[in-house]
């Protein structure tokens, strides 16, 4: 059996005293791309925050094992250095901190930054922009992908990379993401699954009310959700088979 790059065991998380994730179990084998579906407010982004160890997302029980190491109590930057790269859904504005400053920290080679800019079709002047200040919805997606590429981790997490992106940019981002996933593992959150036109995903999971209620083939699950809505997931059987080992 292949190794797990990520294994989340019985994870329960609270934010300001409110339970947001309940006994979440998730395994992602090395080299696989998994998709996470779920209604608004079901806890998808929170799962990412907990994976990164943001202190507001208090782990009340469970463990997170990454590359065989228990990272449940590691600070965020140490987890990230182990190879987790996340593109956020709603990244904060930081006045005076330029996109270029972050990119050059992640990727000291200026030429490589230039190449990445060309890839996402960002003008050079974007490097001088305060991070996320006045960025359009699509520009946020691009900037996040850009940073994930520069981070060069081997486990990529994309929180709704396809929401609010126009057709042209979706093609650009889809292609870039597909390239980036080559030889890497990933967890991708999407509502409508449009990004799946560009990438091959191995497995999908559905998160409802803070719990993973079903797992299975991405195409099949997406089809059912689009046809019947999330109500379908409530009756779908939970997949319990082990797909990888620690």
């Amino acid at each position: 059996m292949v190794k797990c790059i990520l294994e989340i065991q019985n994870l329960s998380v609270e934010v300001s005293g409110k339970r947001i994730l309940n006994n979440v179990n998730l395994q992602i084998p090395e080299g696989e791309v998994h998709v996470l579906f779920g209604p608004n407010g079901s806890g998808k982004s929170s799962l990412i925050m907990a994976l990164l160890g943001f202190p507001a997302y208090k782990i009340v029980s469970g463990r997170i094992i990454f590359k065989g190491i228990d990272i449940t109590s590691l600070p965020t930057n140490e987890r990230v250095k182990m190879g987790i790269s996340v593109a956020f859904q709603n990244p904060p504005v930081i006045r005076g901190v330029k996109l270029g400053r972050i990119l050059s920290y992640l990727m000291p080679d200026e030429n490589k930054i230039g190449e990445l800019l060309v890839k996402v079709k960002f003008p050079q002047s974007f490097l001088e922009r305060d991070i996320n200040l006045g960025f359009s919805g699509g520009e946020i997606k691009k900037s996040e992908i850009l940073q994930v590429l520069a981070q060069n981790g081997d486990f990529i997490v994309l929180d709704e990379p396809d929401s609010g992106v126009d057709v042209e940019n979706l093609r650009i981002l889809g292609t870039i993401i597909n390239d980036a996933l080559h030889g890497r593992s990933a967890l991708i959150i999407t509502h409508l699954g449009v990004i799946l036109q560009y990438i091959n995903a191995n497995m999908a999971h559905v998160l409802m009310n803070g719990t993973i209620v079903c797992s299975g083939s991405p195409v099949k699950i997406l089809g059912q959700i689009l046809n019947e809505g999330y109500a379908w997931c409530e009756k779908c059987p939970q997949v319990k088979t082990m797909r990888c080992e620690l």
Partner: protein
Amino acid sequence: MSTSKDDALRAINKPAAYGPDLDVNQYSRQPKNWEPCPISSLPKEILERILEVGVLPERENRAASFFQIDHSVIFRAVQSLFEDKVEIMSAREALEKYDWLKDYWWKIVSVDTDKYTALAELAWDQGYFIRIFEDQKVTMPLQACLFISTDNLNQNVHNIIIAEPGSEAQIITGCTLHSSVQRGLHVGITEFYVKEDAKLTFTMIHNWAQNFDSRPRSGALIEDNGVFISNYMCFKPLKSLQMYPVAYCRGVNARARFNTIIYGTGTSYIDVGSKIVLQNEGCRGEIISRAIATDEAQIYARGFLQGEHGNTKAHLECRGLILSDKAIIYAVPELMAKVQGAELSHEAAVGKIAEEQVQYLMARGFSRSEAEALIVRGFMDVSIFGLPKELEREIQRMIDITTERAL
């Protein structure tokens, strides 16, 4: 008619509207004597200090220089390239040379404002006079340094800056002291005259000491289409600093802008405001201030926009960052419109470093302290000030030096 002296005498015990009231008699009026000399031949210690306030020892990179230590003017010269564009001299020299200068003396700042303006009249210790000639564009910055070398000294300077019609210049003024100086009082009167179509960028950097008091008093008068930009920075601890410079946009389309960055450390008591009065058609004003308070510093960040004419517009943006539980920032933005058509607005925000921002940067691999340093530095980003690129780089360099040490 009463003379300035009479007015000053009446105001000598008048406390300032803001800031702790000082007993001006507690300071010494006995300066060290300094003979004139080139800046570069001053003691190494002094040269190191002045670099931190933007004053360069070499003449090549400044169009003109003025240097005062305690009560003595030790240097003043215009680079030969700029001799027909600008003049620089001590205020006393200028008053002797130009009879008309008295029409500019105490005309924007009133001598009886408070005990500090009164002191500057009654115990006046030089200061500088700078005039940029009509239609002359001075491409290189001018510099002035007011230095204190004697502990517990009281230094009272009165500066006059005149930008004649159509002229353009940038002036950097650095005020600092010798490392042996712990206490003292600096009173600086500065009156700016920005005439028709002139543009003046004035950058003042203060570096004082733990037990030092500073009371600058500045005013600017801006004529038709004139532009006045004032940048003020203070990064080092001091006992107390209080100032509230005002710009009167008197001419049609006159513009004024105040940019302020304060970094309050130790037990500093800092009360800094900026005021813009819009007095004519098309006037525009902008006040941008950034205050950072750490340790037990107290910062009052004030701003006042006054609209006295229709079709005028001004905005005030005041942001404060608190880095310690014992530090305090009071942001006091005020707007006063006296007529219709004066469009005044403000935004003020004071808070701690946003945890969400730290988390985001940590998710990019920065450690917590690296992330915080990056955010603080970003908070003091001078690129929003709209300065000439070269000046912007110089100021950024000074901020980097200071924050590197502070963080």
